[in-house]
C-alpha cells in the first residue's frame, strides 16, 4: 500500500502530469488527422522521451497511444476518413450519422465509449494481469492459426452488398501481403529485387492509402464534377434534439459497449491481433447480433459504440503480457519496452518485484490519461464538429498532405509515399466497382499473421492436422469460425424474410 501511494504520488507530480497531458494532446492530434497514425506518432515521440524521467516517459507514450485511438473516430465520423486504421469500422455508422446531421451526437458516443473501453481495460490490466498473461502464453501456433481463421470469416460479414466481391478483395489483400521475405526461408517473394519490399508493402502506406487517400480521391472527384451536393455536407446541426445524447440512448448502447469492451480486451490479450482487427471483429459481432430496430450501416450509434469501445480496450489489454511477465504482445508494447530500457528499467518477469513503485505509478498515470482523454476530447469535440463545415477544397489538399507525410514517416523513404499513392488509386478503382477496401485491409493485416501461425503450427505438429484435438482452445476457435462462417453467409436471407 505504501508503495502504491508512493507510485501514485510520482504520477501526480507536475512533470508526470504534464507529460501525460502532452501525450494526450499529441495523440489526439495524430488521431484526428487522417494520414498521421500511431506508429508515426510513436516514432516521433520516443526520441522526445529520452530526456524525461521513466514515469513521465512511459506516461507520455501511453498518452499518445490512448488518445490516438480515441481521436481516430473524428475523421471517420465527419469525413468518412478514419484518423487511424483502427477507427475504419467507425465509418460504417459514424459517417451516415453525420450526414443525417447528428455529427456531434456521433462524436459524443465515440468519445464516451472510447473512454469507457479504455478505463475498463486499464482496470482489468491492473487487477487481472497475471492470470490473463498466462492465458496469453497458452496461445501457441495452433491456437493462433485457428484465431486467424476465425478472424478471416469476418470478411464475409463486412463485405457490404456483395459477399463474392468482398471475398475477392479480401483475398487480394492476402495476396499483396505475401510480398516480402518468406517467414520461414527468408527468400524474397515478389520483391523484384527491391530491398524496400523485403519487409513487405509498408503497413502504413497500405492503410493510409486505402482508407484516407482513396476517400480523398472520391471526394475530389465529386468536387471536380461540381456535384457539390455529394461532397461533405454534414453541416453541424443546430437542432438541439440531435446534438444531445439522451439517457435512453445511453441505455441502448450500454450492452453493446460492454460486450465490445470485452471483445477488445480479448483481442488485446491475444498477441498480434491489434486494435484494427479488434474493432472490426467487434463491429461485425454487433451487427450480426443486431436486434430489431437496429440500423447498422445506416447511422446507428450502436455501430459507433461497438467499434470505438473495442478499439480503445485493445491497447491497455495488449500491455498485460508486458506488465505481468515482461514480454511485449503488441507494437505499442514493444515501443514501451524500448522506453523502459532507455531508462535503465529492464522489463521482465521480475519487473513488479524490482520496480513496484514505477509500475504503480504507471498504472495511476494510465487512469489519469483516461480522464485527460475525456476532458480533452470533450473540449475538442465542439471544435472538431466544425471541420464538417470546412469546404472540401481546403480539406482535401490538407489531408493529402498529411497522408504523404504520414507514409514518409514510417520508413523515411519516398518509396512508402509512392506505395501509398499507388494503393490509394487501386482502392479508388476497387470501390468504384464495388470491391470493399475494408475486406482488403482485413486480408492484408490478418494474412501474414495467418501464414506465419499456420506454418509454425504445421512444424510443431509435424504436419499432422488431427493433432488439433490436443488443443482445446484451438478447437474452440475453429468451431467458432465454422459457426460464424455459416451465420454470416446465411442470415441475410433469414433476416430479409423476417422484415418482409
Amino acid at each position: 500500500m505504501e508503495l502504491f501511494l508512493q507510485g501514485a504520488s510520482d504520477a501526480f507530480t507536475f512533470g508526470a502530469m504534464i507529460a501525460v497531458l502532452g501525450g494526450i494532446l499529441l495523440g489526439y492530434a495524430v488521431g484526428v488527422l487522417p494520414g498521421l497514425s500511431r506508429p508515426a506518432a510513436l516514432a516521433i515521440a520516443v526520441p522526445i522521451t529520452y530526456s524525461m524521467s521513466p514515469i513521465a516517459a512511459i506516461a507520455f507514450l501511453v498518452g499518445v497511444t490512448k488518445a490516438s485511438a480515441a481521436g481516430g473516430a473524428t475523421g471517420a465520423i465527419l469525413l468518412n476518413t478514419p484518423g487511424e486504421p483502427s477507427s475504419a469500422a467507425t465509418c460504417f455508422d459514424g459517417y451516415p450519422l453525420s450526414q443525417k446531421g447528428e455529427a456531434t451526437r456521433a462524436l459524443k458516443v465515440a468519445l464516451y465509449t472510447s473512454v469507457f473501453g479504455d478505463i475498463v481495460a486499464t482496470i482489468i490490466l491492473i487487477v487481472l494481469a497475471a492470470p490473463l498473461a498466462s492465458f496469453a502464453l497458452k496461445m501457441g501456433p495452433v491456437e493462433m492459426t485457428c484465431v486467424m481463421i476465425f478472424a478471416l470469416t469476418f470478411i464475409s460479414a463486412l463485405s457490404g452488398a456483395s459477399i463474392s466481391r468482398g471475398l475477392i478483395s479480401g483475398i487480394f489483400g492476402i495476396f499483396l501481403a505475401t510480398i516480402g521475405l518468406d517467414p520461414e526461408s527468408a527468400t524474397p517473394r515478389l520483391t523484384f529485387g527491391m530491398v524496400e519490399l523485403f519487409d513487405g508493402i509498408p503497413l502504413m502506406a497500405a492503410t493510409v492509402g486505402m482508407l484516407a487517400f482513396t476517400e480523398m480521391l472520391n471526394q475530389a472527384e465529386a468536387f471536380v464534377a461540381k456535384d457539390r451536393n455529394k461532397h461533405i455536407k454534414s453541416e453541424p446541426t443546430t437542432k438541439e434534439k440531435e446534438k444531445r445524447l439522451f439517457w435512453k440512448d445511453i441505455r441502448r448502447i450500454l450492452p453493446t459497449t460492454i460486450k465490445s469492451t470485452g471483445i477488445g480486451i480479448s483481442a488485446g490479450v491475444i498477441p498480434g491481433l491489434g486494435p484494427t482487427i479488434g474493432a472490426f471483429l467487434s463491429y461485425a459481432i454487433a451487427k450480426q447480433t443486431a436486434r430489431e430496430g437496429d440500423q447498422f450501416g445506416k447511422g446507428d450509434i450502436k455501430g459507433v459504440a461497438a467499434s470505438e469501445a473495442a478499439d480503445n480496450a485493445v491497447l491497455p489489454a495488449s500491455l498485460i503480457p508486458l506488465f505481468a511477465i515482461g514480454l511485449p504482445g503488441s507494437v505499442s508494447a514493444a515501443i514501451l519496452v524500448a522506453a523502459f530500457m532507455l531508462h535503465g528499467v529492464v522489463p521482465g518477469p521480475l519487473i513488479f518485484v524490482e520496480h513496484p513503485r514505477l509500475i504503480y505509478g504507471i498504472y495511476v498515470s494510465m487512469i489519469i490519461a483516461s480522464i485527460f482523454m475525456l476532458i480533452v476530447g470533450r473540449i475538442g469535440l465542439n471544435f472538431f464538429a466544425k471541420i464538417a463545415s470546412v469546404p472540401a477544397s481546403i480539406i482535401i489538399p490538407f489531408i493529402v498532405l498529411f497522408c504523404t507525410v504520414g507514409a514518409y514517416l514510417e520508413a523515411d523513404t519516398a518509396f512508402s509515399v509512392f506505395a501509398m499513392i499507388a494503393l490509394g488509386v487501386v482502392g479508388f478503382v476497387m470501390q468504384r466497382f464495388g470491391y470493399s477496401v475494408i475486406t482488403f485491409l482485413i486480408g492484408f493485416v490478418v494474412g501474414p499473421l495467418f501464414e506465419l501461425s499456420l506454418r509454425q503450427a504445421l512444424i510443431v505438429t509435424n504436419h499432422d492436422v488431427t493433432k488439433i484435438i490436443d488443443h482445446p482452445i484451438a478447437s474452440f476457435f475453429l468451431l467458432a469460425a465454422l459457426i460464424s462462417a455459416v451465420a454470416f453467409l446465411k442470415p441475410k436471407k433469414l433476416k430479409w424474410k423476417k422484415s418482409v
Partner: protein
Amino acid sequence: MSTLKKSLVAVGIAFTVLAVSAPARAEYPEKPVTITVGFGAGGGVDSITRAASEALAASLGQPIVVKNKPGAGGALAATALKAMPNDGYSLAATISTTISFDPHSSKLSYDIDDFEYVAAFGVFPEALVALPSKNWKTFADVVKYAKESPDGVTYASTTSLDKVVLANIAKSEGIVIKPVPTKGGAEAVAQTLGGHVDFAYSSGAYYSQAKAGNLHVLAGLGKQPIPGFEDTPTLEQLGYDISSVNMVLYLAPANLPKEVKAKLVDAFKAASKAPEVLKLLATRNMGSFVLTGDDIDKQIREQSAQYADALK
C-alpha cells in the same frame, strides 16, 4: 550577351570555383555528421547510437544527426549508405550480421567491400534457451534427446543466422532440429515459455526471464561466455566449429579518406567509454566489448568468411 549577364556569369563562375575548392582546404568535419540507424527508434541499435552521439559530437566538434531507416534487418540503411558520398558525413548503424551474413543468405545490392568499418559496440548475448522443466543442463542434453526422438526437436528461430548455425549442428550430429519461424525475440521467448517449442534462439529477450529462473540457458553462441551466465558453455566449447559475434556496427561508404576515417575511429573510441553508452550496454547485457578501425574490419571479414562456408 549584355554586360549585366556577363558579370553575372563571371560571379557565378567565381562562386563555383570557390565552392569546389573550399572542401579541399577545410578540415573534416565542417558540417553535421548523419548516422542512419537501420532499425526503429527505441530499439537497441537506436538507443546505443543516440547515447553515443553526444560523445561523438563532443570529439568531432560537430553535431550528430541520428536518423532511422528501419527495414530488412538493417539492409535498407546499408543499401542507402552505399549510394552516399564517401566524405565521412554519412554513416550507418546496423548489426554486424547485416554485413557479414545477410549478403550471403539473400540477394542484396551490397557486399562486404562496399563499406569501411569504423567501430562496433557491445556483443548481443545470443543464446539457446529452454524451459527449466525440460531438465536439460546444456545443449549437449538437447542433442542426446534429439537422437532418441524420431521427430527430432523444434526450436523458435528469429533470424536466418540461427537457422544456419543449428542446421550445421544438426548435420554434424545426424539429428533433426526443426526451426519454427517467429517475428522476433519476444515471440520466440513467449513460444518457449508457453511450451509450444522445445527450445529457442534469442539474442537478448530471454535474459530477464533466464535471470528470474523461468528459462534455462543451454549454450551461448559467442566466443566469450554470456555475462551473468559464465558457467554456461559456448557452442565452440561444446565442440562445434561455429560462433556468432553480433555487435552494433558503424560503417561508412568504402574508400573513406584516411584522415577522415582516423578521426571517426578516434571519436568512436572515445564515445565507447562514455558513461551513458556503458550504462545502456549494461542494461542490454551486451558487455563493454568494443572494436574499432582495423580490428573490426578484420573480425567482420572473418565472420563473413565463416558464414559463407557454413552456407555452402
